[in-house]
C-alpha cells in the first residue's frame, strides 16, 4: 500500500518515540541460553549416576573422585551465578550442590559420613539426582537463543 510521505514520517516519528520510551521496558528480563551451562549439566548428570553407583563401596576408595565432583558442581554454580539475570539457574545449582541439602551435595556428604550406602537407596537417589539435572537442562533450553 502506498503511503503519503508525510504520514510515513509521522508514523516513524511515533514509532521511534514509543520504542524510545519503552526502551528500558524492552530490556530482556532473563539471560540468553548458555551452551556451557547446558553441556555442563548434561555431563555432570551422567557422571553423577556413575559415581553414585560406586557408593556401595567405601567412600575412602573414591574420595578423590567425589571431591572432584563436588568441585565441578561448585564451579558450575559460580559460572551460572556470574551470568547477569541468571539467578534462577544459579539457585538451582545451589540446591543441587549444597552439602547440607538432599540432592547431590548431600548425597556425597552422606556417603562420606556413612562410608557405604545401600544399593536400594542409591537407586532411588539416582532417580532424584537425574531429575534435578534435567530441571537445570530444561530451564536452560527454554531461554531465548542469542
Amino acid at each position: 500500500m502506498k503511503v503519503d510521505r508525510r504520514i510515513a514520517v509521522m508514523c516513524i516519528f511515533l514509532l521511534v518515540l514509543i520504542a524510545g520510551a519503552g526502551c528500558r521496558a524492552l530490556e530482556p528480563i532473563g539471560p540468553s541460553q548458555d551452551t556451557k551451562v547446558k553441556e555442563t549439566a548434561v555431563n555432570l548428570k551422567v557422571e553423577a549416576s556413575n559415581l553414585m553407583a560406586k557408593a556401595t563401596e567405601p567412600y575412602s576408595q573414591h574420595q578423590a573422585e567425589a571431591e572432584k565432583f563436588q568441585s565441578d558442581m561448585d564451579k558450575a554454580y559460580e559460572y551460572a551465578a556470574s551470568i547477569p539475570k541468571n539467578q534462577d539457574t544459579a539457585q538451582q545449582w545451589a540446591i543441587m550442590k549444597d552439602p547440607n541439602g538432599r540432592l547431590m551435595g548431600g548425597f556425597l556428604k552422606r556417603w562420606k559420613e556413612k562410608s557405604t550406602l545401600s544399593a536400594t537407596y542409591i537407586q532411588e537417589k539416582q532417580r532424584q539426582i537425574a531429575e534435578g539435572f534435567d530441571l537445570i537442562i530444561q530451564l536452560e533450553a527454554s531461554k531465548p537463543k542469542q
Partner: protein
Amino acid sequence: MDFKNVFDEVVKTIKDYATTFFKQNKDDVVNEAKTVLNAHKEDIKRWINLVSEGKLTQDDMNDLVGGRIDLDKMEALKLKGMSKGKVDRIKAFLIDTVVTTIFKLIPS
C-alpha cells in the same frame, strides 16, 4: 501400611499443625499438603513398599522425602525462569515488529 494410611495420617498431622500455626490460612496449608502428597504418590508408594521390605531405613526415607522437597524448589525455579523467557520472546517480537513496520512504511 499403604498410601491411604500414610496420606490420612499426614493430612491429620498437618491439619493439627496448621490449626496451631496458620489459623488464617489453615485450609490453604492442608490443601497444599494434599496436592504435594498426590503429586508424589508413586514415589511414596514405592518407598512404603521398600521400607516394608526392610530395604530402606527411616534415615533413607527422611533423605528421600527431603530430596523430593528440594526437587520441588528446583521445579518452581524452572517455571519462574521459563516465564521470564516467554516475556523476553514477546519483547523480541515487539522490537522486530517495530523495526519491520518502520521499514515497511518508508516509501521506496
